[in-house]
């Protein structure tokens, strides 16, 4: 069994409640943290090598150390629970089953950063989790872990839960801050970064749910011990939400030394592809990261085994690699159509574009229309080149990463599956009733007998 740091106690009866969580050793990190210097906690997180679990993978300790600390200005910690990426549902699991783990992580992090008012910005669709979190907050408060003078340390902290209204863009940290302030959820233009000017123009740190929860084991076991788990710069454990054509979809906590092959085919994790089908492709890190065909997914272009971690999944750049992203692992079997899949994603990004900057506002809709055309057998070969040109002009030219997120899936689909697009163009009638199938990018390892 792999090390489980976050989900180890997820199945304990009643772990949602304070008494049970406390009996299982919960809130030890708070007790330990309040006796430490805040700077020492930041140092531990730095030593742990923890990287942001929301998608970008930026070192969390470094992000914390960037926080400006001017005199007399409040600082804020905001927990980004606006988990809206298609395919990613790890934070939901964490908040639903282990709300106290998040609250504990938030108290420790708030103390480390000096935030007396901490916010959880939760996705609007997670309506039932708001109640779970608020109950956990109330229980923690009753037991003296929140509120004024926590455990006699002189540190005050309140946690508030704020629901979003169902916009994907509000998961972008500056749009989240705008929304939290009660404004339209448009991303801000950076710089200034939130660490200097964030919520109500005060220094702010925005972290993902899983990142903040991971602070608890880091404090309990020490940063150096935590860094020993995993490999290279991918330390600790990662939650992966697996879905698509697999036998056992769900949320798994993995060590980042696990190979992609083992993750898909072992019974401990996904349990293989159902109905004896073969693996065609996979989106390894949530819908915005590039899709990879099976032959590049299990082994890198250099022929090395691909592991479930930041470096290995992005090995080869976008030409032959992808990203770990937020850990939304979407598996496609041989019956899935990549064109249709790309269209679905393009439609999502068109719908979720905030409309602030022109490449994303206009480009996402354009890509969706062309993909619809190709999917319906009305496309031309020139449309494929046009799509490529559009995504190229969106990527990197927008205010926030949503433009990139919309461009990457289209780019990767054309890069790796161009023949399938061309087949759609050349067989306008056939493509309405049949799928292109596996072709040459099938999984070369698991050939059924």
């Amino acid at each position, binding site marked *: 069994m792999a090390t489980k740091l976050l989900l180890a106690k997820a199945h304990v009866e009643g772990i949602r409640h304070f008494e049970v969580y406390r009996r299982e050793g919960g809130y030890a990190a708070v007790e330990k943290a309040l006796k430490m210097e805040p700077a020492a906690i930041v140092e531990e997180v730095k030593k742990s090598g923890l990287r942001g679990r929301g998608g970008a993978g930026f070192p969390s300790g470094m992000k914390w150390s960037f926080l400006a600390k001017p005199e007399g200005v409040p600082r804020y910690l905001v927990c980004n629970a606006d988990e809206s990426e298609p395919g990613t549902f790890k934070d939901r699991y964490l908040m639903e089953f282990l709300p106290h783990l998040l609250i504990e992580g938030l108290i420790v992090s708030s103390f480390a950063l000096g935030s007396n008012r901490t916010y959880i910005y939760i996705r609007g669709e997670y309506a039932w989790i708001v109640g779970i979190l608020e109950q956990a907050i109330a229980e923690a408060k009753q037991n003296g872990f929140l509120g004024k003078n926590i455990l006699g340390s002189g540190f005050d902290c309140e946690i508030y839960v704020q629901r979003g209204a169902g*916009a994907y*863009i509000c998961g972008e940290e500056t749009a989240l801050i705008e929304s939290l302030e009660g404004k*339209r959820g448009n991303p801000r*233009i950076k*710089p200034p970064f939130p660490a200097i000017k964030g919520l109500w123009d005060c220094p702010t740190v925005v972290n993902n749910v899983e990142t903040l929860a991971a602070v608890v084991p880091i404090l309990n076991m020490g940063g150096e011990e935590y860094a020993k788990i995993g490999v290279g710069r991918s330390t600790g454990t990662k939650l992966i939400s697996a879905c698509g054509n697999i036998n056992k979809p769900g949320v798994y906590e993995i060590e980042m030394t696990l190979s992609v092959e083992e993750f898909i085919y072992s019974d401990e994790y996904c349990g293989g592809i159902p109905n004896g089908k073969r693996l065609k492709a996979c989106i390894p890190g949530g819908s915005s990261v590039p899709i990879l065909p099976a032959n590049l997914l299990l082994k890198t272009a250099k022929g090395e085994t691909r592991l479930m971690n930041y470096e290995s999944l992005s090995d080869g750049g976008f030409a032959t690699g992808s990203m770990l992203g937020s850990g939304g692992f979407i598996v496609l079997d041989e019956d899935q159509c990549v064109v249709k899949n790309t269209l679905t994603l393009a439609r999502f990004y*068109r*719908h*979720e*574009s*905030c*409309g*602030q*900057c*022109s*490449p994303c*506002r*206009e*480009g*996402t*809709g*354009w890509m969706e*229309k062309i993909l619809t055309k190709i999917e319906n057998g009305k496309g031309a070969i020139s449309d494929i080149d*046009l799509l490529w040109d559009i995504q*190229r*002009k*969106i990527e*990197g*030219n*927008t*205010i926030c990463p949503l433009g990139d997120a919309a461009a990457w899936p289209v780019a990767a689909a054309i890069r790796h599956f161009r023949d399938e697009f061309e087949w759609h163009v050349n067989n306008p009638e056939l493509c309405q009733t049949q799928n292109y199938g596996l072709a040459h990018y099938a999984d070369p390892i698991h050939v059924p007998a």
Partner: protein
Amino acid sequence: MSEAVKTVKVTIDNITVDVPMGTTILQAARMIGGDVVPPAMCYYSKLQGSGGKCRTCLVEVSKGSEADPRPMPKLVASCRTGVMDGMEVKNMTSPKVEDARNGVVEFLLLNHPLDCPVCDQAGECHLQDLGYQHGKQGTRYEFKRRTFEKHDLGPYIQLHMTRCILCYRCVFTADQLTDKRAHGILSRGDHAEIATYIEKSLDNNFIGNVIDVCPVGALTDKTFRFKNRVWFTKPVNAHRDCKCCSGKVTLWQRGEEVLRVTARKDQWGEVEEWICNECRFEKKKTTDWTIEGPTHVSRHSVISQGHYENTIKPKETFTAVHGGRNPQLLMDIHSVSEVNDPSIDLSQINGPATSDVYNHSTKQA
């Protein structure tokens, strides 16, 4: 710091300039002038918080600063990026910028109706200028263009949402000039639109300024609607004693008739001093105004063509940008064609009649 404003050196397209610390790249480029100035559709120096949205002013920073010479990984919006000492910026000398800007222009024009022949903004439209500079002849967009339900903004301001490029300037104007903003952006993505949520006319005394800040023909003056083309009218500086604004305006005349009143604009098309609705919409007689003389129009759009001898010609930066090299062949368009010939005064041409001609048949000869 006690010392005076610190200046930094920044090089844009091989031209070095000293600017105060905290200046944006775009402002520094405007200090140089000429062709090195990136176009800006959403940025407005008089409106706090504007800019960064249209992405036409993207530039390449090939050297971050003297202290950290690494280039910036992505193109940056020059209107919102501050200069650093020793920064090197490429605008017109960078193929990457050229490519990205062409893309942005294509995106901006994608759903634009291109109804310039019936648009009042034609001739002083920034999108039109941008299209001429960076656009292609045809479009690669083959789908139906976006349309919106019509919203009535009251007796003075006409909204054409199909022409809007969502620069947010009018939103910032209403926020910063009026005490209560009544319009804003509704919806998101490509359905985002300027509107008042509940059908409501905009009636703040300074709301007329949204017409001047609008870079396209989305917000136009209802009192000037379809009266004339701007290049047939003559801009004249004038002023009057106004209780609530500076009263310094530009009158757009055709003959003796004042067809339109706008605020005075600088060479970047930005309003110099905001004016009130009374000056803009109610005072349409020459007797209301003290005429100062012809407006100095920069050679910016067709309005300047054929008006006055004191048209300001922008500085030519061509040779400096190319490191002292002169272009092998540079043709003067006027020697080839009569189009835009400065010696022909369009307002003198026996062109379309003014509304007077039709409204008062007695005036006809």
